């Protein structure tokens, strides 16, 4: 035991003005897991990390799918909107070659058309092969003739006037703008991306709910710590930042694990799926330029877990005097 006659410590040496840590120090404290005044109970356990990682995996898949789909949509609409087709159904009033010549004459005078190429009969037969089979198209099967038109996308021709002119030029001639086909494709693609965003929203909502539960559980497990900090004059914001730090790390870690698993899944899909396309989603996996976008998942996860934990703590503390 120390000497009872020793002088008490000089308290006047203890008074200092409040110091604010610099931005650098705050950032370091945010990113490097330092020891917190709040125990990590309930916020950094392995099960919770696994759940957050799984959520982030699902989010990566949904995000990847949304990106692939919108990519494909753009590709298709660019591809198709630059081209038109004239279909010439066989007519009793005119020979097929005459039909082609008549329409080509009309097309030659229309500004905004880059090229107009009549398809040869063999090419038309080749187009039908997938449906009718090889060598089954006989000469007596009346085949329509097709003219493939590339238009100048900068100054396209007036399509409705063109359609009237073409119909007038030859019996059985009609202009196919691919509009209906494109419209259906685009609306299917749009539904698919809405679905992907819907999945993202559900995943985010579930993560928020889980973090709220975990934060509340952590707070009630650490009730004594919270009360003592509160009674010795800690501000709500201080207690919240001690708690939210755990959740920031939880979100970052779970996010990286989930996004990495998602990236691996897309890579595996690429190897397994080869070059074929499944409906809408490219089975060849995610385009290389979209992989960096998956990094948004851990950032978003960290923001979601951090904000949710902070608001939950502030909300709980509000009930104390």
């Amino acid at each position, binding site marked *: 035991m*120390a000497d*009872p006659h020793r002088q008490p410590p000089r*308290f006047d040496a203890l008074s200092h003005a409040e110091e604010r840590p610099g931005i650098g120090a705050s950032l370091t404290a945010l990113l490097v897991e330092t020891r917190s*005044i709040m*125990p990590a109970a309930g916020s950094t356990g392995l099960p919770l990390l696994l759940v957050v990682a799984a959520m982030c995996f699902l989010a990566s898949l949904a995000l990847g799918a949304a990106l692939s789909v919108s990519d494909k949509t753009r590709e298709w609409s660019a591809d198709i909107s630059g081209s038109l087709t004239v279909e010439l159904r066989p007519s009793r009033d005119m020979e097929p070659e005459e039909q082609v010549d008549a329409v080509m004459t009309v097309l030659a005078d229309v500004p905004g058309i880059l090229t107009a190429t009549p398809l040869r009969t063999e090419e038309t037969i080749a187009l039908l092969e997938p449906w009718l089979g090889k060598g089954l198209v006989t000469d007596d099967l009346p085949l329509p003739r097709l003219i493939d038109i590339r238009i100048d996308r900068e100054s396209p021709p007036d399509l409705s006037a063109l359609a009237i002119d073409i119909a007038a030029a030859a019996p059985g001639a009609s202009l196919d703008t691919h509009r209906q086909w494109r419209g259906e494709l685009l609306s299917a693609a749009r539904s698919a991306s809405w679905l992907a965003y819907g999945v993202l929203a559900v995943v985010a909502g579930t993560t928020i709910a889980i973090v709220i539960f975990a934060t509340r559980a952590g707070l009630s497990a650490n009730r004594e710590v919270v009360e003592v900090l509160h009674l010795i*004059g800690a*501000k709500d914001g*201080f207690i919240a930042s001690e708690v939210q730090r755990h959740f920031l790390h939880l979100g970052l870690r779970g996010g990286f694990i989930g996004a990495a698993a998602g990236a691996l899944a897309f890579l595996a899909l690429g190897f397994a799926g080869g070059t074929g396309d499944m409906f809408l989603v490219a089975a060849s996996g995610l385009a290389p330029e979209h992989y960096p976008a998956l990094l948004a998942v851990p950032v978003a996860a960290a923001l979601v877990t951090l904000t949710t934990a902070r608001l939950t703590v502030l909300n709980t503390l509000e009930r104390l005097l």
Partner: protein
Amino acid sequence: MIRFENVGMRYGMGPEVLRDVSFHLAPGSFHFLTGPSGAGKTSLLKLMFLANRPSRGLITMFGEDVATLPRAELPTMRRRIGVVFQEFRMLDHLTTYENVALPLKIQGRREESYRGDVEELLAWVGLGDRMNARPPTLSGGEKQRAAIARAVVAQPDLLLADEPTGNVDPEMGQRLLRLFIELNRLGTSVLIATHDRALVEAAGAPELVLRNGGLTIRG
């Protein structure tokens, strides 16, 4: 500095544990709070360290009416009050040093600015070699001294202590009393709730006596 006017307090729908309590503690004063067990000493202290609200009456602390003070202002006021809790309330996952440094840390102070002072204080209460021990490994007396060190480390304007010498030998009790007196000499108002007659007599300070929820002043 601290003024209670006709303060009453009850827990929930229970009976009043404090009735018409009125007193005034001047800045730099030194008082004891005595009375039999269950007389309401701890309840009175809880009102003073802003853990509970009174059911009636007026409490003015540092010139502010506690009832009308916005919630956001309370932490600033709590930092002016050092509390030695009856059950110590140390944080078990932190070391003794970290526990004692806590009031400085929550003020946003850097560790370099207080480390030496905290170590000196710990050495003075006889915990110099227990700084890195965690509270569960401390004896009752050691915990009590750590709790006292935490209460005084930020040199508060008001020190409230609930049975601060209940678990220490008389020699250490006198030593802790000297710490309180030194703190008081530097301007801190001190209120010590105790059953320890020797402590009260050694200090010779006035007593607030609680009996059946009512308060009288002696000395």
